[in-house]
Structures are given as structure tokens and as C-alpha cells.
């Protein structure tokens, strides 16, 4: 009893210090800053976006709850359905091209050749240059009247080529060249082309990093077994870089799906909505027309589609982790 009386009660500071000695408490304390950032900059805008999509909010007004009214309107609009289809098409085609060409480029860059390091650094340039800047350059190259591609094609079309009097190519007359951003089919092709050009280095460098982790012994063993180049790629290279490839592809799908800058600068969704994506439509409705409720609904429409992709990625990574 006497002993208990003589022991002073621990001060608040001491209590905190003791609590922090507990790993579980300390874990939460250390996690708090990151959690706060996520809550403020991700969770709050997300919840706000969900709420807005369920209201008839017009810029400057608080908006009234209308349930799924915005979604009803969107599904009744061909413009929205076109944009949704365009987004899926754009993402699928661009990702396939980026993955295939990125793999090809990575295999090439993995070889030993002169100026390999400079070449690898140069390949990264499209990814490093700010997208807005590089897309403006593409806009000029696709210009309907002054496209450098068309002027070159036109010159080649019209030039006579002859060697020692033998005509190899004659003047084929006037050639206008493709309407890169004016013809509906070409416009989507051009937008995908720029996206692939910009995203390819990310794939190539990621695949290259994965390739360099493969032990050379495996290739030696394959050589001894008489495997050809293609078989080595299929049975050795591909299985070993698959985990990296899945992560890179899923990441690219998410980013490509939400792409905005390319289309906004190149076509603003034209001609005739042929290049409108969900991101550009959401911006047009929310920021351009002041119809924030509908804009939020378009933006949120991307969520379930992307969620499927992300859940797949998490499932795959967890499965690989268990292995």
C-alpha cells in the first residue's frame, strides 16, 4: 500500500511515450499523415464526385438530389454512348500496340551494341517531354493544310525519279494526303498513334528492366536444349517478365482510359464526336456547359470499368505473392 502511494502517477507525456512503444499504436501514428493526404485529396473529392453525380448541380448552385437522373439522361444520349465506346476502343488498341511494340523495343535495347546507353536514354524522350508540348507539335504535323507529312508525301508523289534515263518513278500528279484529324477514321487513328508514341517508352523501359533480371544461365540451358530464338522468348523470357508486364499493362490501361490531354489538344472530341472520350466529355459537360452533375456522372462511369481492371491486378499480384 505504502509503495503504491509513493509511486507518482505517470504524466501525459509519459503515457504517450509508453503508448508509442507499442508497435501497433506507433504503426497507426506513422500511417496518419499518409491517411490524411488520402482522405483529403482522394477520398473527399471522390465522395463529393459521387454526390454531385446524384444531383442536378449547375455551376454556382448547390444542386438537388435527383437519384440516378443524370445517368438516365446519359444513357439516352448518343454522344455519351459514342464517347464510352471510343474510350474502350482507344484504350484497347493503344494498349495492345504499346505492349507489343514496347516488348519488341525492349528486346532490341537489351542487346549489346554501340551507343546502347545513349539510345536507351533517347528512347525515353517522348515520355519525358510534357504531353501538352509534344501534342502541340503533333497538332502541327497533322495540320490539314500545312502537315509536314502531307507536304513530304506530296513531294514524293510528284517527283520524277530516274537513273541514267531509266524512269523509276514518274510524277503521279496532285496528291492531297490524308486528313489526319478531319476524316473520322483517321482522326481516331491519329489520336491513338500519338498515345502509342508517348506511352511506348514506358513499356519499353519497364520491360527492359525486367529483361535484365533474367539470369543468362537460363538462356544457356535453352541453347543446350536446342531452343530457337522464338522458343527462348516464349518459354524463358515471357514467363519471367510476366509479373512486370501485367503491372505495366494494367497501369497503362488505367492511364489511357482516363486520357484527356491528347484529345483535348488535337480534336476536342471532333469531328462529329468521333474522338470524344469519357474524360473529354466529362470536362465538356462539367466545365464547359456548367452542368456539373452530368459531368460528374460521366467521370464516375469510368470507375466500375477501371475497378474491374484494378481488382484483377490486385488478385494477380496477391496470387503471385503467395507463390
Amino acid at each position, binding site marked *: 500500500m505504502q509503495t503504491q502511494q509513493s509511486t507518482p502517477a505517470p504524466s501525459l507525456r509519459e503515457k504517450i*511515450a509508453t503508448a*508509442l512503444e507499442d508497435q501497433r499504436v*506507433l504503426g497507426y*501514428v*506513422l500511417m*496518419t*499523415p499518409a491517411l*490524411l493526404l488520402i482522405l483529403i485529396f482522394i477520398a473527399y473529392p471522390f465522395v463529393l464526385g459521387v454526390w454531385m453525380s446524384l444531383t442536378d448541380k*449547375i*455551376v*454556382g*448552385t448547390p444542386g438537388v438530389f435527383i437519384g440516378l437522373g443524370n445517368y438516365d*439522361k446519359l444513357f*439516352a*444520349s*448518343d*454522344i455519351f454512348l459514342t464517347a464510352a465506346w471510343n474510350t474502350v476502343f482507344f484504350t484497347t488498341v493503344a494498349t495492345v500496340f504499346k505492349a507489343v511494340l514496347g516488348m519488341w523495343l525492349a528486346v532490341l535495347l537489351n542487346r549489346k551494341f554501340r551507343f546502347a546507353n545513349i539510345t536507351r536514354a533517347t528512347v525515353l524522350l517522348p515520355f519525358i517531354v510534357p504531353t501538352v508540348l509534344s501534342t502541340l507539335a503533333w497538332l502541327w504535323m*497533322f*495540320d*490539314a*493544310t*500545312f502537315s509536314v507529312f502531307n507536304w513530304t508525301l506530296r513531294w514524293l508523289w510528284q517527283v520524277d525519279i530516274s537513273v541514267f534515263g531509266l524512269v523509276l518513278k514518274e510524277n503521279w500528279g496532285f496528291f*492531297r494526303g490524308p*486528313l*489526319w*484529324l*478531319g*476524316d*473520322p477514321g483517321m*482522326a481516331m487513328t491519329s489520336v491513338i498513334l500519338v498515345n502509342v508514341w508517348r506511352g511506348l517508352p514506358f513499356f519499353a523501359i519497364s520491360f527492359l528492366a525486367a529483361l535484365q533480371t533474367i539470369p543468362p544461365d537460363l538462356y544457356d540451358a535453352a541453347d543446350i536444349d536446342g531452343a530457337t530464338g522464338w522458343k527462348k522468348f516464349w518459354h524463358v523470357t515471357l514467363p519471367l517478365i510476366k509479373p512486370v508486364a501485367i503491372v505495366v499493362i494494367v497501369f497503362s490501361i488505367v492511364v489511357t482510359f482516363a486520357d484527356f490531354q491528347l484529345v483535348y489538344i488535337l*480534336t*476536342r*472530341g*471532333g*469531328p*462529329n*464526336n468521333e474522338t470524344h472520350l469519357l474524360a473529354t466529355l466529362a*470536362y*465538356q*459537360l*462539367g*466545365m*464547359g*456547359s*456548367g*452542368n*456539373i452533375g452530368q459531368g460528374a456522372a460521366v467521370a464516375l462511369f469510368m470507375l466500375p470499368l477501371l475497378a474491374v481492371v484494378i481488382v484483377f491486378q490486385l488478385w494477380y499480384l496477391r496470387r503471385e505473392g503467395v507463390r
Partner: protein
Amino acid sequence: MKKTEQHTPAPSPSSVTRRDFVKKSTTAIGAVVAAGAFLGGKAPAYAQSRKLHYLQWSSFIPDADTEIRRQAEEFTKATGVEVTVEMINQNDMTPRITAAIESGQGADVVLMINNQPHLFANGLSDHGSLMGELAGGDLYDWANGAVTVDGVARAVPLFNIGNAIVYRKDVFDELGLAAPNTWADYLTVGKALKGANLPVGQTLGHTFGDAPSFAYPLLWSFGGMEVDEAGKVVVDSPETHQALEFCKEFWDAACDPGGLAWDDTSNNRAFLGQTIGATLNGASIYFVARRKFPDLADKLAHVNNPEGPGGRYHVIGPRSPAIMGYSEQKDAAADFVRFLFQEDNFSQFISVNSGYVQGLTSKWESHPVWSSDPALGIFSTNAKYGRSYGHAGPWNRASGEAAEKYIVVDMFARAVQGEDPKAIAAWAQKELENVYG
């Protein structure tokens, strides 16, 4: 005990214990949160100086921007109110205004275009007294309608930017062509121009100026319209079908096919690059030619939009300074708007624009600028043929949204790509009902 001491690392000046780290982190986070709370809130009134932020588009006429900056400096000298003038691309104005209203901060005065006061009515001040004082009862009706929302003026219309068909007089003379008066004339002229490798240049892309300026009047001049006077969507009509059929014929026979991808600057470049012979535009092509290619400028002339069975029309819409609802400097902002309207200032503004802009009351029709250059006189008549988006219905938020979605422009873009006019009009009817409904 001794053992424990041996395991304890010797403290070094740079080592940080877990406890220290947590303590310092907590302090730092506290400081950041406190700073954020302070910065996020409003500065105390006594710390604020009299400052105004004015946001407007970056004009195609550089001298016009210089003149506005000069007037802002004069205003500062006269009142002591410091004015920050910000000029950005017109295509970026709408998102900026939306963001400003939603966040409750940004420019105090914004130069609105067309019916933007309808789009942003809830974020703008009541301009009733300023309207009475500055515009009076002499204002053109369409300009009044652009800013009046539910009987309340949400901005004060200052000027309009007209448009007309600019064409190569020398080429017309060479080909024996006269300036077109009707759409049938324009088709004949366009065929001849295309035959001479100088076609009509016209955008049908997603761009705010030239595309709707062409598409809407073409629709109206054949008798088609988005909505009737009661606001009912009536675009799917025989008149619209005729307009679409004509547009397809006109496009194939007379136009540069590249126009589907053009923005508002593309036809300027094409005309000055001498790859097209006629195009609908503001007077900016003429000004640039006058400054940089005077020989070409001497060969240019302007004519109004052609007349169709339903009449002759131009898209028209005022530029109107609006005081934002969140502004804490409303009195100074109103003084600045008054300053822009001041007779000598506005007259000087019209002069430096050399006919690119028009005043919105009849007294400005006799401004000396209209007789200073015969090539520009036509622009003073725009107001006579002017209609706004949503004609024949009232100018409202829905007509702005329909324009922003390029529904009418895309009708014509689809037509020139060969789609069935009836199917296109039915599509537009459905999309417009979605917007107006």
C-alpha cells in the same frame, strides 16, 4: 543492466530516436495544418489593399489587348485601385469561370461571351443599376437577352465581334465572279473557286467561333431552328433536311475537305497561305494581311452571309464584363466597368480594333472607323442580321449547353460525311431534347 547499456547505440549528432521523430513529425504536421487553415481562409480585411483582377480573352487583335492594359493603368492612376489584367485563350475561358465560381475565388471582373451570363447566372452579381446607367434603353435586343436572366441583368454588354465572308477580289475578277448574295450564288462561286484550286475554307470541327458561326446561320437561312419561340425542340424538320442536303452539296463541290479538323485559326492560316479563296471569319484575316502582306490586303473584300429561303443571318453575341458574385471589391469592379464604357475609352477601343468590334447601341454605328476603310464597312451591319444560339427560342442556359456540345455543328459535320439528312436531324432532335428537356 550492463548488457543493456552495451546494446544501446551511442548517440550521434545526426541520429534520431523514434520518439524524437514522432515528436518532430507531429509538430511539423501541426504547423502545416495550421498554415493550410490560415491560407485556406480569407485574409483579414485590414490586410487587403484595393486590388482588382480582370480576366478576358486574348484578342486576335494584339492592339486591342494593349489598349485594355493601357485603360487599366489609367484606371489605377485615377482611382488608386491596382488592376491585374489577365488574358487567356477564349477556349479556356469557360473552364476558368466554372472553377472560379465553384471555388469562390478568382477574377473580380470577367469578360463573358455570348450567353455565358445565363450559364453562370448563379455566380454573378446583379448588374441592374449598371445596365440602366451604362447601356440605357438603346441596347440592341439580342444583346439585352444575352445578359438578362429571369429579369435580372448578370453582366453589361460592351461590344460584339462580327463576321463576314472574306474573299479574294482579284480571283473573283479573274474568274468573272460576283460576290455571292444567296446560298445558290455561293455554291456557283465555290465551284469555280475549287476549280481554280482556291476552294472555300470552312471549319466544321469542335471550335467555339467559326464552326457555329457557319452552321447556325446556314440552318436558320433555310428556315430550320433548334427550338421554336416557345422553346420546344423542332430541329427535325423539312427545312433542316434541306439545309443539310445543301451543305453536303456545297461541301463536296466548293469546300476544302480539311475543314473538318480546323480550329478557329486554321482558316486564317490557310487564307493567308493562299490555299483558299473565301472563308467566313472576323476581320482578323484582313488585319493581319494589312500588317504583314499589304499586297494581299489590297485584294481582299468582305460580304455578308448568303441569303436562303428563310432569310439572311449571322451568329451574334456580345462580350460583356461581369462582376463575380464572390468578389469582395464589387464597388471598385463596378467603377472599372464604368471606366471601360466611358465614351473616350470605348471609342478608342473601337478605333484600335479598326472595325473588328462593334458597339451595341445605335450611336456607335456612325463611329468614324466604319468610313476609314471601305473593306470593313460591312461589319457594322452584322447587328441587323444577328441571331443568337437557340433562335427562335429565348437565350438561356440550355442553348449554351447545346452550343457547347456542338450538336448543330455536328449535324452538318455528319451531313458532309454522307449520312442521311433525316437520320441526322432525328439524332439532333433527340440530343437537343436531352439538353432542353
